[in-house]
């Protein structure tokens, strides 16, 4: 089952990448990132089956960090929305050099 899991994981990851590059809505992009994280989680779990429980422990941590990240990220987006009334990333270019 390892190879098949890895296959699915890779596909999900690639879909996540495409989503990040294609969408302009900040929240959608964020969710694509979450998708990528999930794909990686799948990889870890698949390996855990063959190579020991460390993989599952790692998934545990990934999830925790993802939760924390989601909280902070969404807070940022809310603050951003308050300033700019939009989350369309094309209009948010204050960092323009």
């Amino acid at each position: 089952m390892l190879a098949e899991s890895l296959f699915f994981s890779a596909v999900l990851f690639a879909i996540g990448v495409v989503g990040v590059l294609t969408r302009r809505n900040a929240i959608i992009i964020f969710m694509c990132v979450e998708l990528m994280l999930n794909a990686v989680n799948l990889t870890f779990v698949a390996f855990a089956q063959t190579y020991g429980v460390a993989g599952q422990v790692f998934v545990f941590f990934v999830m925790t960090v993802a939760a924390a990240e989601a909280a902070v990220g969404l807070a940022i987006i809310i603050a951003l929305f308050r300033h700019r009334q939009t989350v369309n990333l094309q209009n948010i270019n204050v960092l323009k050099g």
Partner: protein
Amino acid sequence: MPHGDLSPFYAFHFYLFGIIAVASAVLFVTRKSPVSAALWLVNTMFSLAALYVLLDAQFIGAIQVLVYAGAIMVVFLFVIMLLNLGDPSELSDARGLAWKLVAGGVGAAILAMIFAIVRTKVPETLRLPPGYAARQIATYGAIEPVAGPLFREYLLAFEITSVLLLAAIVGAVALARRRDADAG
């Protein structure tokens, strides 16, 4: 759950949930409405939870549902609704066709590379005997094989993670609260 080598029942369900996950992901990426997209992502996560269970990671599957699908995605949906992004007048557009094609190409490239990389061989000595994970669960239950190492070898990481969560909470509150000077 204990299973024989690729019993048809097992394999069928494995592929079923795998395909559902991928299909949901594709749908998620292509939806215009953020709410629909979020819900499709929830679906993906459920499928992944099922896959975890099939891979002898029942505990992980459980917390996937509890934390990811149940907490994180809910927060996403709250924010979408808070910002009124589901409103038809706020529908987001993806970028143009050219972007999509190039992005597709990039994705394909990444895919290809991952496949190539996955060919690397891991030394055989690291392999556990087949069915080891299933036997562990049968002996100790689903949680203990994960919790044991968590509180022994990986205790430091555990503690740091808890600090991280604290920082995240404080940060999120600080960022999102209204300041009186802001017009809002």
